[in-house]
C-alpha cells in the first residue's frame, strides 16, 4: 500500500467558519489567487497550502451549509486560528456564528486565535470603493494598519465616483455595525473562558473585508499568520521533544514514524 501520508506537512492550521454565502471561499480565492471569481457553495471543505516564510500554513475553507455542519469540529481540531465570518449585510449571519459555529471551535487548540470578519463591506461602505484609486493602491481608510493591500484589478469602477450610489448601483443597508461585532467578540472570549485583558484586543481582531475589492483581505490573513507564529514554534519544539520523530521534516530518511525502541 502506498504511503499516503507523504504530503507537504502543514505546520499550522487556520480554519474559516461561517454561514453559507457569507463569502469564505471568495475570501480565500482573493487572498490566494488575487482575484474575485464565481464560486459555488462549498461541498464538504477544501484547503489551500500557503507558504509563509519558512512555514506551511494550511487554510481550510469549510462549507457553511447546515448539511455539513457536523464536520466542523473535525476541521477545527488542532486549529491555531479560526476566522469566524459573517456578512455585514446580513444580521442573521452574525447570529449564526454564536448559535451554530462557536461550539465547533471546542476542538481547536487551547491557545487558538479568533478573528471576527464581516465580509462584503463593499456593499455598504463607500470607503471600500474609494480606496481603490486609479493606481490601484489600497489605502486603509481606518488608518489602523500600515500594511498595503495588493493592487486591484477592478472591473468597472470609474474614478472618482460622484456619489456612493454610483459604485454598484445601490448601497445596501449595513445590518451589522462594528459595535455589534466588537461585543460579539467579547462574548466569544467569555465563552472561551478567556480574560479580556490578557487576550488580543477586540479592536484588533474584528475586521471588515471585501473579497470583491480585496479590501483588508491581505491584512486579515497576514495579521493572523503573524499571530500564529509562536504556535508554530511551540509545535516544532514539542515535536522535537516527543518520542516520535518526524524524520522527514528534519531531512532524514527512513520510516515516517519510528517507534522508539526503549518502550
Amino acid at each position, binding site marked *: *500500500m*502506498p*504511503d*499516503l*501520508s*507523504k*504530503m507537504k506537512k502543514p505546520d499550522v492550521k487556520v480554519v474559516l467558519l461561517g454561514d453559507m454565502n457569507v463569502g469564505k471561499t471568495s475570501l480565500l480565492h482573493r487572498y490566494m489567487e488575487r482575484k474575485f471569481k464565481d464560486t459555488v457553495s462549498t*461541498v*464538504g*471543505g*477544501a*484547503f489551500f497550502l500557503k507558504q509563509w516564510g519558512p512555514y506551511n500554513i494550511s487554510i*481550510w475553507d469549510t*462549507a457553511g*451549509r447546515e*448539511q*455539513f455542519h*457536523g*464536520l466542523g*469540529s*473535525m*476541521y477545527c*481540531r*488542532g486549529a491555531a486560528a479560526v476566522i469566524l465570518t459573517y456578512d455585514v449585510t446580513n444580521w442573521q449571519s452574525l447570529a449564526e456564528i454564536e448559535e451554530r459555529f462557536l461550539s465547533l471551535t471546542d*476542538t481547536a487548540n487551547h491557545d487558538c486565535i479568533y478573528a471576527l470578519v464581516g465580509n462584503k463591506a463593499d456593499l455598504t461602505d463607500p470607503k471600500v470603493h474609494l480606496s481603490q484609486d486609479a493606481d490601484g493602491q489600497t489605502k486603509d481608510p481606518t488608518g489602523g494598519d500600515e500594511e498595503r493591500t495588493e493592487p486591484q484589478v477592478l472591473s468597472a469602477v470609474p474614478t472618482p465616483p460622484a456619489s456612493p450610489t454610483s459604485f454598484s448601483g445601490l448601497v445596501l443597508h449595513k445590518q451589522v455595525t462594528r459595535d455589534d461585532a466588537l461585543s460579539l467578540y467579547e462574548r466569544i472570549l467569555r465563552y472561551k473562558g478567556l480574560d479580556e485583558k490578557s487576550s488580543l484586543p477586540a479592536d484588533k481582531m474584528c475586521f471588515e473585508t471585501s473579497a470583491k475589492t480585496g479590501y483588508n483581505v491581505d491584512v486579515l490573513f497576514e495579521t493572523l499568520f503573524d499571530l500564529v507564529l509562536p504556535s508554530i514554534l511551540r509545535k516544532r519544539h514539542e515535536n522535537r521533544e516527543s518520542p516520535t520523530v518526524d524524520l522527514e521534516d528534519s531531512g532524514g530518511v527512513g520510516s*515516517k*514514524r519510528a517507534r522508539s525502541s526503549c518502550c
Partner: protein
Amino acid sequence: MNCVVDVCLFSFSLDVLSEMSVKAFELVPAVERDLLMGDKARINIECIECCGKHLYVGTNDCFIHHFLLDEVTSSKGKLTYSAQKLLHKYLGLKKPVAELRAASALERLIVLCDGIVFLVDMVTLESVPSAAGGGVRIRGVTAFCINENPVNGDPFCVEMGVLSSKRRTVQVYMVFEDRVQLVKEVNTPEQPCAVSLDGYFLCLALTTQYMILNYNTGAAQDLFPYDSEEKRPIVKRISREEFLLAAPGGLGMFANAEGVSQRAPVSWSESVIAAAVCFPYVVALDENFITIHSMLDQQLKQTLSFRDGQVLQDFEGKVMLASTKAVYVLVPLPMERQIQDLLANHRVEEALILTEGAQRNIPKDKFQILHRRILQQAGFIKFGQLQFLEAQEHFRKGQLDVRELISLYPLLLPVSSTFTRCHPPLHEFADLNHLAQGDQEKVLQCKKFLITYLGEVRSTEVANGCREDVDTALLKLYAEQNHNSLLDLLASDNACVLADCIPWLEKYHKYFALGLLYHCNGQDSAALQLWIRVVDGELQDCTRSDLYEYIVDFLCCTSNLDLVWKYADWALRKDPSKGVHIFTKRPAFTDQSDLSPDDVISYLGKNQQALLLYVEHLVLEKRIQKEMIHTNLAVLYLERVLSLLSKSPTDEEQLTRAREKLQAFLRESSLYRARFILGKIDNCEKLLLERATLHGKLEEHDTALHILVHKLRDFSSAEAFCMWASSSRDSAYQRQLFHLLLGVYLDGSPPAAGAGSSELQMAAVDLLNRHGEVFDAVCVLRMLPDGWSLQLLRPFLNRAVRASMHACRTSQIALGLAHSENLQLLHDRLKEVRKPIFVSEKKGCHLCHNTFSEPNVVCLPGGVPVHTHCVAQRVRDSPTKKRLTNSSNHT
C-alpha cells in the same frame, strides 16, 4: 475465446458512457457469470477475497468458489484475465457468505456466515477443527476486520476486530492456525456497525457518529455525526493511521488516528456503498456507477457505469469489484498515459498535479525525466495558447533545451547547428506558421516572446552547450524586428555564427551591426571596409549617423597598426581635422612599440592640415620637448601664413589668426631653430613682427627693436617686446632692454629732426612716463637731449624724485630707532649690574615657561631672567629685525 470478444464489447460500451475525458482506469472482467452460477438467476455474489493469484468468491447460497486468476497481456499490450475454477464448497449454513478474509501465512480463510466467524483451509476449503476439539467459532458477529498494521510481531498470527450484534463492544482477537484468542474487549457508547483497525486504533461507525478508539489506552476521539438509519457507513483504512469515511451530504471524508482531516473531502453521491484508494485516486461504488476522484485536487476524474455493484475492495493494491454476477479488476492505466491523455486535452494543470502526485510511485531519476518532459509539453501547450508567462515558467522548470523552441521559428537556427527535435515530439506544431495559422499578429507575439526568453536565458546555464544557436537566433530576431538590443548583443561577449548571420544582416541592411560582428570575429579589416562603404554612400544603413566618427574612433583605439596605416588615409581624405584624431586621440598604450611620432609625421607628410594638427598636438598637448618637432611646427605655421599671404585676395581674418598662432609659438617656444626660421623670412617685409621676435630669441635685441621701431613703427609692440624678452630674467636685464629701446628712440631722433622723429620723441617720453620705475633716472637724465622741457617729463621726474626721497627718509628713521634702542639697553645694563638676579628651579623662563637647569641666563630689560637659547630664538624672530632687513626694499 468467446470471452475476448465480450471484453471488447464491454469496454466499448463503457467508453461511450464515461463522461470524463481522463481515463485513469479500465474495467477488465475477471470471472464471468458462466463460470460462477451459469444461468441460476437467484445466486448472487456476496463477497470476494483475492490473495495473490487465488480468488475466493462467497455467494448467497453459502458457497465458496476458489479460482486461479491469471493475468494475460495481449500482443497489443491489452491486459485481460483468465480465471480457472479450482474448487467450490458448500459451507452448510444455508445463509449467504457475508465476509471472506484470507490469512495466507496461516493458510486459512476467515469466514463470516450466519453471524458466525470460523476458519476454513485455503486449499481444501474444509472447516478447520479447533485444537481443543470442535470448530473454531465466534458467534453473534455482525462484522469483522483484519488489522493490516498489526501490533503483535508474530507473523503466524492475525489480529482481528469483531463487532457483535447484541453488545455495545468491540472485541479484538488473535487468530492462529487452529484457534482464536480474545485479547481485548472495549465498550463503545453506542452500538457499533462498522469497524476498521490500524495498530491500536479502531475506527468505528456507531449508530449516530464515527469515532476513533485506541483499544490499548481507551482514549476515544469523536469524529463527526451521521445517521446510520439513513445511510450505510463506510469505514475504510486507506493507509497507516488514516481512514476514509462516508460523511453526510455524500462526502468521502478523510480522518487520521488523531481525529484530524489532512485532506480535503471528495464529493460522492449519497448512495455510495464502498470505497477504496488507489493512489492518487479514490474509487467509490454506488448503485449504478464507479466514480473516480483525484485525491490531489478532489476533482471527479472518471465515471464508469456499473450495475448491481456489490463489492469494491482493494487487495494488495489491486482494486476489484463484483456485481451480483461477475467479478472485475479495475486496472489503472499507466500514469504516463493518463498524463498524456490530459495533455492531449490541454488540461495542463491537472496533468502537472497528477505528475507531481505520482512522484512517490516512481524512482527518483525516472520521475525527474518524466516530470521535465511533462513540464516541457505543458510549456508548449501554453505557448500554443500564447500564454507566454506560464509557458516560460514551465520551460524553465522543465529545463527545456531552448533549441526545441527556437526550432519552431523557421531559419533561426544556424545551418551549422546539430540540433534535432526530440522524439517523441514535445508538441504538435510543425513550425510557427502552422501554429499561428497565418495570423501575423500571433507570429509577432511569438517572436517577441522568444526575444525576451532568449534574452533571459542566454547568460544562464540553460544556454550551455548551445550558445551559438541561441545567440545566432537572438541576433536574427533582433535584426528582423529592428530591436535596439542588437548592438548590445554584439557589444557583449557573444557566440553568433558569422557565416550564418552575414546574409541575414545584409538582408535587413544592418551593415553597422555586421561590421561589429566581423569585429567580434577578429575581422576588423572586413568591418572597416563595410563601414567605409556605408559612409561613402554605397550601402544604406542609418543605424549611426556618425559612422565616420565611429570609424575614426575605432582606428584610434585599435592596436593593429596595419589597420591604422591602411585606413587612416581614407579618413584623412574625408576630413583631415577629424581624421587626425586617429593619431591625436590615441589612448596611451603601455606598449612602447606603438606609433612613433616620426612615423606619423612622415605618413602625414602629404597632408598639410592633418600634419599641422598632429604636430601641434605633439607640442601643445603631449609637450614633447624636441627641437626637431618644434622647428617642424614653426615651419608649418610659417608655411601656412606664407601660403595665405600668397593668395590673392588674402583672407585677412584667416591670416590674422594664422599669424597670431605663429607669433605666439615663436614667442613661447624656445626649442625651435630660430636662425633656420629666420632664414626663411629674412627678407619678407610682411612678417616684421615675426622677424623681430626671432631676433629677440637670438638675443639680437638691437636688430629686433630696430625692426619694430623703424620698420614697423609699432611702439607698443616694441614695449611688449621688452617685457617678454626680459620676462624670465632679472631686473637688471630688463632695465638694460628698456634703456636699449630708449636709446633706439633717441638715436633715431636727432634734436633738429623733422616730424617723423618727433614721433619717436613722443614714444620715448611715453616710455619714460609709463615705465619710469624700470629706468635708472640718473642715466636717463644724462641721455636725454638738453632741449626737452621739464613739463614733458614731469610724471617721470616726479616719480623719480619721490622714490629717492622715500629711500632717504626710510633709512633715516631706521637709523634713529637703532640709536634709541642702543641707549635703552645701555641704561638697563647699568641698572641691573647692581642688582642680584634670582634664578631658581621653581621660577620659569618668561619666554618658554620651562624651569632653569643651569645658572647661565640672559636678563631682559627689567631684570627678567630667560634662557640663553630662548633669547637667541627671539632675536632671530624679532619683527624689528625683520623690518630692518626688509626695509631696504621698501619704497
